[in-house]
């Protein structure tokens, strides 16, 4: 009997390779090819300027330089702006950059010229010899400057407003006006970024004999890149293959496409007739990929004596940087996912998406949810503090109850579909969290610590995450005559463990050995129809598609096996790759079934003799039936009507040093509900990584722009990604499994879960420790020190009451 693998902690098949340095990333490709060329990019040193002249005459004198491109060298579709990937009716003033800057630059790091040389050293030497004359323009940096609109990023975008969007259910302002209690909050989140270990990278090879272009890219969507490359370079789609090899993390930034280099590298390869590689370096990643998170929020809330939300009115301003290639996805997610597990009776949300002269903004793991969670959870804490109630009690009062699913919010989600939650049990999750973190015992702990002169605080935060957005993913399952199973799905992998989790699904559904399953992702030659890896969608979308495709292959296998075994299909079972008649010795292995599925004229080995024309089939019928096809394969697509909604709750206990204002994590607890777990170890790994990234976002990382639009900390020396020494040594995790009714496996996404509540939960815990409101994140010891001084000046009495 094949052991059921779904739901078990199967060790990741990827890890041996990755841990032994045998991963194969874009920069590892074609390194032995002596014809390989290397690219470097001249990037704008100014945040806002008109380009009056570009002089490349000194460049071609550099030995080893083959070519240089500026905007004037681009023609046809390449001379048009890059695509606006996700248009939206309210994005009335969407703007995208050119592959190489045309006439003006709008952020430090914007690509101006593209040099190809024999190696990257020479290419960088050449870049330093390009002379550009600029007319400097005053930059717009930060949300306040964008709103003030004293200066414009784009002359034809009044007020720097790219979009204004409003959604409302009920009448929030009237409900607030009538509410017994009201509060107003101003809440800020700063910029951060994904910063994957591997930056962007593209390699392209043009084969003149077959007129075929192969592109390797560290993207989160190989089909997306393929479509863009074909369109921009004027190639038939069939002439372009895009392959995503091992990718060293994405976290969202690599879903944006095409990057200028993703088009310029193939263009150069075609023009020069030699393979070309671009590997982004770390500084380039900071100043010319994408950031996220910066938003300023104004919240008005009305509530009753129990803390029940009667009306919630949120206005916020989103800094989307210099251009809007990814549309409004991030602020739309904030405005809808802000609601979390709660049901305000009346809700209004309005945002303006603003231009600034800074790096573009595209989704970063969590994608607007961390900001939304911060807003809602800070509001919940403020209500609890105002009413003098326990913070968990106010949350419980506002929870959507288990019997209310599917729960319709009456809003439109990021995929254009209704915001309708499919499953969850928030009261049960909260009980688990309280037990896990020791919520009810905390006051005793606080007292014990206070007796030692130590200051501690506890916080919690809840979120709901729409995962597994459409439109679709597909899978192709091929059982070879060896009995091995080759599976292709089109979305890409950045280290999540797809090979393992997907193989678990195939092994269970087909009844084959896990070791016999091989998964290919992100290769347009194997699966040309796909969307990509983002929004915690891989397990839900490709996992479901793989399950459906496996069912089709199984169905066919049973049909052929039934004929061969002269048995009824209903009496057959498949275990460890062998089809047998239940309760008998009669069996046939799947490899042989595969042989029989493909009527042959020629025998190429011993096994294939069984399928040749004198061995098999009814001579009175066509060898392949009219509605059948040769081969033991299954192909299917999964396209759900709407997203599935995972949820979770985090709690943290922190210690704040009374002297140095340093913030230390004492305990971190997570209760997580992503429906059925395919592989609990992988899910917990995702949570661990997400929490680590969240600790970074809450306590360490930020993008420090000066007034001139220069990013002051564009290196890992000054952008403080936490080390292993800064993240919790243990994270207590408990799971709740409320299966999704929307897909055959009952699963919901888990990829972003760990990072969403970080800003909210740390703000809550620090506030609890210090006794004054925390309204802006991230927070450093220096900032906490400043807040202490401020509140010591103004609220000595209140501070005394809370024991400071």
């Amino acid at each position, binding site marked *: 009997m094949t052991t059921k693998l779904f739901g078990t902690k199967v060790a990741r098949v990827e890890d041996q390779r990755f841990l032994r340095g045998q991963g194969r990333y874009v920069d590892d490709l074609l390194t032995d090819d002596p014809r390989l060329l290397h690219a470097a990019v001249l990037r704008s040193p100014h945040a806002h300027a008109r380009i009056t002249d570009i002089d490349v005459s000194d460049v071609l004198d550099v030995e080893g330089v083959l070519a240089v491109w500026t905007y004037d060298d681009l023609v046809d579709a390449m001379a048009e702006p890059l695509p606006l990937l996700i248009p939206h009716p309210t994005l009335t003033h969407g703007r995208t950059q050119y592959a190489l800057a045309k006439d003006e630059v709008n952020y430090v790091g914007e690509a101006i010229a593209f040099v190809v040389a024999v190696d990257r050293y020479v290419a960088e030497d050449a870049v330093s010899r390009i002379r550009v004359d600029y007319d400097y323009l005053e930059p717009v940096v930060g949300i306040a400057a964008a709103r003030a609109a004293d200066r414009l990023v784009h002359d034809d975008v009044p007020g720097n407003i790219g979009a204004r969007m409003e959604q409302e259910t009920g009448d929030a302002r009237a409900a607030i006006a009538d509410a017994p209690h009201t509060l107003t909050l101003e809440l800020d989140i700063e910029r951060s970024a994904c910063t994957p270990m591997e930056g962007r990278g593209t390699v392209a090879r043009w084969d003149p004999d077959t007129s075929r272009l192969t592109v390797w890219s560290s993207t989160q969507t190989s089909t997306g890149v393929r479509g863009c490359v074909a369109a921009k370079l004027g190639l038939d789609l069939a002439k372009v293959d895009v392959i995503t090899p091992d990718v060293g993390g994405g976290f969202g930034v690599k879903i944006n496409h095409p990057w200028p280099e993703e088009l310029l590298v193939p263009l150069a390869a075609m023009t020069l007739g030699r393979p070309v590689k671009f590997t982004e370096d770390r500084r380039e990643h900071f100043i010319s990929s994408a950031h996220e998170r910066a938003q300023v929020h104004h919240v008005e809330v009305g509530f009753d004596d129990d803390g029940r939300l009667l009306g919630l009115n949120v206005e916020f301003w989103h800094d989307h940087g210099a251009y809007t290639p990814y549309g409004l996805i991030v602020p739309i997610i904030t405005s809808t996912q802000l609601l979390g597990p709660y049901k305000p009776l009346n809700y209004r949300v309005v945002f303006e998406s603003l231009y600034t002269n800074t790096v573009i903004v595209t989704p970063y793991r969590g994608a607007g949810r961390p900001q939304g969670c911060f807003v809602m959870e800070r509001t919940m804490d403020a209500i609890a503090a105002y009413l003098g109630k326990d913070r968990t009690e106010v949350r419980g009062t506002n929870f959507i109850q288990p019997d209310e699913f599917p729960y319709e919010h009456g809003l439109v989600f990021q995929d254009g579909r209704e915001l309708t939650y499919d499953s969850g049990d928030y009261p049960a999750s909260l009980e688990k969290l309280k037990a896990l973190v020791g919520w009810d015992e905390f006051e005793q702990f606080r007292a014990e610590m206070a007796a030692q002169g130590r200051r501690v605080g506890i916080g919690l935060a809840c979120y709901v995450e729409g995962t597994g957005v459409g439109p679709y993913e597909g899978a192709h399952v091929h059982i070879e005559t060896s009995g091995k199973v080759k599976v292709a799905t089109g979305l890409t992998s950045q280290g999540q463990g797809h090979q393992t989790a997907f193989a678990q699904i195939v092994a269970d559904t087909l009844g084959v050995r896990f070791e016999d399953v091989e998964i290919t992702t992100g290769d347009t030659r194997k699966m040309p129809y796909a969307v990509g890896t983002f929004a915690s969608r891989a397990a839900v979308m490709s996992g479901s598609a793989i399950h459906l495709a496996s069912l089709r292959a199984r169905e066919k296998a049973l049909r052929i096996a039934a004929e061969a075994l002269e048995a009824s299909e209903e009496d057959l079972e498949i275990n460890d790759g062998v089809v047998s008649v239940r309760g008998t010795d009669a069996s046939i292995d799947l490899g042989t079934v595969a042989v029989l599925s493909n009527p042959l004229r020629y025998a190429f080995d011993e096994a294939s003799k069984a399928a040749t024309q004198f061995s098999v089939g009814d001579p009175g019928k066509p060898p392949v039936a009219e509605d059948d096809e040769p081969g033991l394969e299954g192909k299917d697509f999964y396209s759900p009507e709407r997203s599935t909604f995972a949820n979770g709750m985090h709690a943290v206990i922190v210690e704040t040093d009374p002297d*140095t204002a340093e913030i230390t994590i004492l305990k971190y607890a997570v209760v997580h509900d992503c429906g059925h777990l395919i592989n609990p170890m992988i899910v917990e790994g995702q949570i661990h990584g997400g929490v680590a990234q969240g600790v970074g976002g809450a306590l*360490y990382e930020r993008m420090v722009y000066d007034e001139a639009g220069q990013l002051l900390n564009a290196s890992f020396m*000054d952008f*403080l990604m936490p*080390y292993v020494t800064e993240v919790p040594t243990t994270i207590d995790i408990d799971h709740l499994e409320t299966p999704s009714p929307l897909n055959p496996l009952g699963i919901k996404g888990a990829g972003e879960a760990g990072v969403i509540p970080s800003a909210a939960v740390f703000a809550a815990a620090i506030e609890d420790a210090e006794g004054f409101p925390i309204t802006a994140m991230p927070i450093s*010891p220096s900032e906490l020190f400043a807040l202490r001084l401020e509140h010591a000046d103004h609220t000595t009495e209140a501070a005394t009451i809370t024991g400071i």
Partner: protein
Amino acid sequence: MKPAPFAYLRPTTLEEALTALAGEPGAKVLAGGQSLVPLLSMRLAAPSMLIDINALPDLGHVTCDEAGVRIGALARHAEVLASVEAAASQPLIARALSHVAHPTIRNRGTTVGSLVHADAAAEMPMVLRLLEGSVDVASVRGRRTIPAAELFAGPLESTLAHDEVAVEAFFPALPAGGGIGFEEIARRHGDYALVGVAAVVTIADGDVVGARVGFVSVSDVPVVVDVTDHLDDPAAAALAELDPAEDIHASADYRAHLVKVLTPRVLADAIHHARTRKQA
């Protein structure tokens, strides 16, 4: 992030290295490379030549005698940190070195290289200054000893002439009756300190007869303040001579606050160390 072109020389004798250095005004000396190589890669430095001294003989030593610890130009931080004799002779060396970056960097970076890099945010220049050590330098013109008090000219600037190579550093031993303390606050483990404080005290007949405190990251050059006469409020005395600056990680006020928090604490540790230390 690729360096601009440079010539590369890997001499096998000190004379060869010194001659080459004297003949190439744009040359830089490469030892552990933990500061220089990133500067090259970011093209913030573009020397015409790198003179790699890693093949020179007899510069990897960490030796101790009654006077103190002598550290050769090629001794790695990790080797100095691992020296039991050095820790016994002058315990402040190991205390401070354990805060220098991370093990991988300590495995390559050299202590002497860190000294002549003269970064006021680095631990070892301050330690040398506090202990009143010195650096021996060599050039085609001969050798000389630069006392720590004369070594640091400004931010990232030592008083070595261009043709000089630092060959050895000397850290005096902790005398009988002496005690040390060290503490720093950094944003992450191994980062440059927001503020670092070291103290050396001397006890005689149970009384503190000497107390000096050194500071990291609160001035342009390593600063040492004698607080022997200010033991009631050593931080105030120190702040009178310090100029904490704001950067993206900390405000000037916060740095000053950390000086106030750490100075008495480290001084107390040093006094405790002096009183409880086993005398050899």
